[in-house]
């Protein structure tokens, strides 16, 4: 097996483990770090083929059929499928393929349940260098998880247990005598690829051993579930563990991963907006995540994305009740040098996010980043003109290479403009469209693509205005750009929904920000502009709606994944009016408010 094999050409090997013979495949050259991939139920090693072949360009990759699946032998009795036997199988494979060097383990579903057992058991101590776990918790951890939540008596925690139980309905069904094996024998195997395509949207292709995989694999559940869940053992590990979490897994709830850091010394977690079979739906991503982790554990650098994914022990919430809700997330805020942008940046920083402050004023961006650092965040500052396509492309490129795809993008940069439509010149229009609309287009498009490619279940927040639905003769250009931003967000939301990306438009009322002091009033001379700016400033100051209130609403909307965020009574009023009485809304649009000094 250590002969030189071309990448992607697998070398078969039979390995004996007690009564059982296991079918092993080895890809890639010897002498490189070994990555062992373990499949779940009802799959065979074939489920890894999209990942194993490309990975074998850099590592020696080993896959094998778990007992009962694929070309491995299948004991008849359920008891032969106990975790201790599965770990013995893995040990036999490791003895055969890498007797001297510890391997990097990556496993999915039932493979992952075995993987947890492997990294926690004394038997394989020192044999596993790192573990990437996809969609399969330790049954012991799960047992504790259930017990802790039931014992708490808190309705919210009990509901989480119920939620997980409902996802696990099929496990109960598997315990019925005959039913599941019979179903696989009666043609479920033929139906399975179609079911996967229909339910999960993945093309698994027909597997020759599907009927066998399904039929014998049921024993995995029968042999282990009740035993481990009802009498869980304390299972800890010093092996570095990377969780890759499909956030739309129908079979494993995300809550099951809460508090995992109590068992694992070194833990990373990366979320992907995808279903259960991640290695089929996002093979490049799985391959990249495994590769980055293996390289890091082998002594390489920790890429920014991996560094952010580190799970740190949750610090006890301070008296202010501050939580680290956004720890491990990367947030980009444009126009972050002042006003709503700066406050949003700081609030996200305070709640644990790594932040990038982008602003056309580099000193202001740097100041925001510095404040974010004082709040304990990792923060970066970049000078960016959001209306400049080239500059935005460069900025997005820098983010992708230096930091990885963002989790949160707040397209906030904007300028103000007031005055009559007929007085608004072409240059004025070009200027405001460039920043207020093109800025949002560039930001949404460039970072939206990065999020989709990285499978990030992220957020795109576009800051519009209550004027998006409240017409006014005094603010024709500004209101037009903001209405466009709101509509852009609505369309984008429809498109990105299926990628798990949340798109929000934020419509604040009269917020007291520096934008009023920089607003251009068209059709009047410079002195009159100054007077009106001062007048608007006083009006907005008297309204006293703070940027911090908008920031709080934005961050809350990230949690609730709300599509539209209204801030201020006037925003709610205008929204209501635009729906209930558009006629009155049109009448009000004719009003002109004097901005002269009192």
């Amino acid at each position, binding site marked *: 097996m250590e002969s030189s094999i071309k990448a992607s050409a697998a070398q078969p090997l039979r390995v004996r483990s007690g009564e059982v013979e296991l079918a092993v495949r080895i890809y890639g050259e010897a002498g490189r770090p070994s990555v062992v991939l373990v499949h779940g139920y009802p799959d065979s090693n074939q489920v890894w083929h999209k990942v194993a072949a490309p990975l074998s360009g850099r590592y020696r990759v080993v896959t094998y059929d778990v007992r009962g699946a694929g070309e491995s032998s299948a004991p008849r009795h359920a008891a032969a499928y106990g975790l201790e036997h599965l770990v013995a199988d893995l040990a036999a494979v490791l003895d055969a393929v890498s007797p001297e060097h510890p391997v990097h383990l990556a496993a999915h579903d039932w493979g992952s349940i075995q993987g947890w057992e492997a990294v926690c058991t004394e038997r394989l101590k020192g044999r596993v260098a790192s573990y990437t776990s996809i969609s399969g918790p330790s049954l012991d951890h799960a047992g504790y998880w259930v017990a802790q939540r039931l014992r708490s008596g808190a309705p919210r925690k009990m509901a989480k247990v119920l939620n997980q139980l409902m996802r696990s309905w099929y496990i109960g069904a598997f315990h019925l005598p005959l039913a599941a094996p019979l179903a696989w024998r009666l043609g479920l195997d033929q139906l399975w690829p179609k079911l996967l395509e229909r339910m999960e949207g993945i093309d698994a292709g027909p597997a020759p051993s599907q009927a066998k995989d399904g039929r014998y694999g049921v024993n995995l559940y029968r042999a282990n579930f009740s035993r481990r869940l009802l009498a869980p053992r304390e299972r800890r590990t010093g092996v570095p563990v990377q969780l890759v979490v499909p956030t739309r897994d129908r079979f494993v709830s995300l809550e099951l991963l809460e508090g995992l850091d109590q068992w694992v010394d070194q833990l990373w977690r990366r979320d992907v907006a995808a279903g259960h079979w991640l290695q089929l739906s996002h093979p490049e991503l799985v391959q990249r995540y495994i590769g980055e982790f293996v390289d890091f554990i082998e002594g390489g650098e920790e890429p920014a994305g991996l560094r952010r994914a580190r799970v740190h022990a949750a610090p006890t919430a301070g008296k202010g009740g501050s939580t680290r809700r956004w720890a491990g997330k990367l947030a980009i805020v444009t126009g972050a040098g002042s006003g709503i942008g700066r406050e949003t940046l700081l609030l996200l920083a305070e709640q644990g996010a790594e932040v990038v402050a982008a602003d056309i004023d580099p000193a202001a961006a740097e100041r*925001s980043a510095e404040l974010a650092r004082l*709040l304990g965040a990792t923060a970066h500052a970049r000078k960016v003109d959001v209306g400049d396509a080239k500059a935005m492309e460069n900025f997005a490129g820098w983010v992708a290479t230096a930091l990885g795809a963002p989790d949160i993008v707040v397209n906030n940069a904007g300028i103000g403009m007031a005055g009559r439509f007929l007085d608004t010149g072409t240059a004025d229009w070009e200027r405001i469209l460039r920043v207020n609309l093109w800025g949002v287009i560039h930001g949404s498009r460039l970072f939206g693509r990065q999020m989709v490619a990285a499978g990030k279940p992220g957020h795109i927040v576009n800051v519009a205005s209550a004027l998006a639905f409240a017409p006014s003769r005094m603010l024709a250009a500004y209101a037009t750009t903001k209405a466009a931003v709101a509509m852009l967000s609505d369309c984008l939301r429809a498109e990105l929904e299926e990628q798990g990306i949340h798109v929000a438009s934020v419509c604040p009322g009269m917020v007291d920000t520096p934008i009023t002091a920089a607003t251009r009033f068209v059709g009047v001379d410079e002195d009159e502009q100054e007077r009106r700016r001062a007048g608007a400033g006083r009006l907005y100051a008297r309204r006293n709606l703070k940027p911090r209130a908008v920031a709080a609403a934005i961050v809350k909307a990230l949690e609730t994944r709300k599509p539209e965020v209204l801030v201020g009574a006037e925003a709610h009023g205008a929204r209501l009016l635009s729906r209930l009485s558009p006629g009155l809304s049109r009448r009000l649009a004719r009003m002109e408010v004097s901005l002269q000094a009192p």
Partner: protein
Amino acid sequence: MGGSSSNGWDPAIADLDGFRAAQKLAYRCAEAVAQELTPGITEREAAILMKRWLAASGAEDCFHQPFAWFGDRTAFEGFIGFRHLGGFNPAFYPGSRRLEEGMPFILDCAPTLNGYTADIGYTGCLGGNRILDRMMDDLLEYRVLILELVKQRQNLSEISRAVDRLCARHGYEPRHKAYPFQVLAHRVDKLPADGRKHRSVLNFGVRNLENLVRDAVRGRHEGWSPLWNGGNASDHPPTPGLWAVEPHLGFRGVGAKWEELLVVTADGAFWLDDDVPQVRRWLSRGLQPLAMAA
């Protein structure tokens, strides 16, 4: 008080020495009490320590009795930030908040010594606090800015707004806006030195308050105000006399301020004393542009 000119008053050199002595006394008091602060002490206890220290050191009256704020109360967060009724808020008075490790604190006292009244603010922290360090560094810019604009004879309201803009640039809340009348500064005057102890009502010295009210009534007729804020009443150039200037910044539950006497003359202005704790701190940290501040 020596009201020589109608629009304020030009202090004599001898008077300045008296004010300087009062200010030094006030800062010595704050520094001495700051040294004694330990975890668990309440604001009220700290204020009483200051009051006793001042009384024992010869202060016969005050502009106000000593204030002490701990923790997020230094940033006037919560009920203390309630600004209605012109900012007169009972939460302003020293309360039962206990000092903890890492907490910022502000001590503010305004003793009258031989008829000369000072009003100072002193910010510190029990242990280290990175946010507070940064704010204290940044407070240097306010000292430079205010003096510069006063020398330019800009309207006091405009200077207030310039301070607000600097706060916005820094990312801080201008918390002096939570003070009564949102003052950035207020006048202090000379009282007759009669060698007797005097009373205060609701923690404010009666004689000093009386002066302030008299100034306010007079200023109203003459178009100036002894209370310096961003409102219309401060739409006038700096009035000669002594001003207790107190920019107060807030950021994420941390507040920082200094308060010092600014001497405004008919054609210039200068800080009464550069030998004050905050300036010594900036010097020790090598911060620029200190030459301008001094």
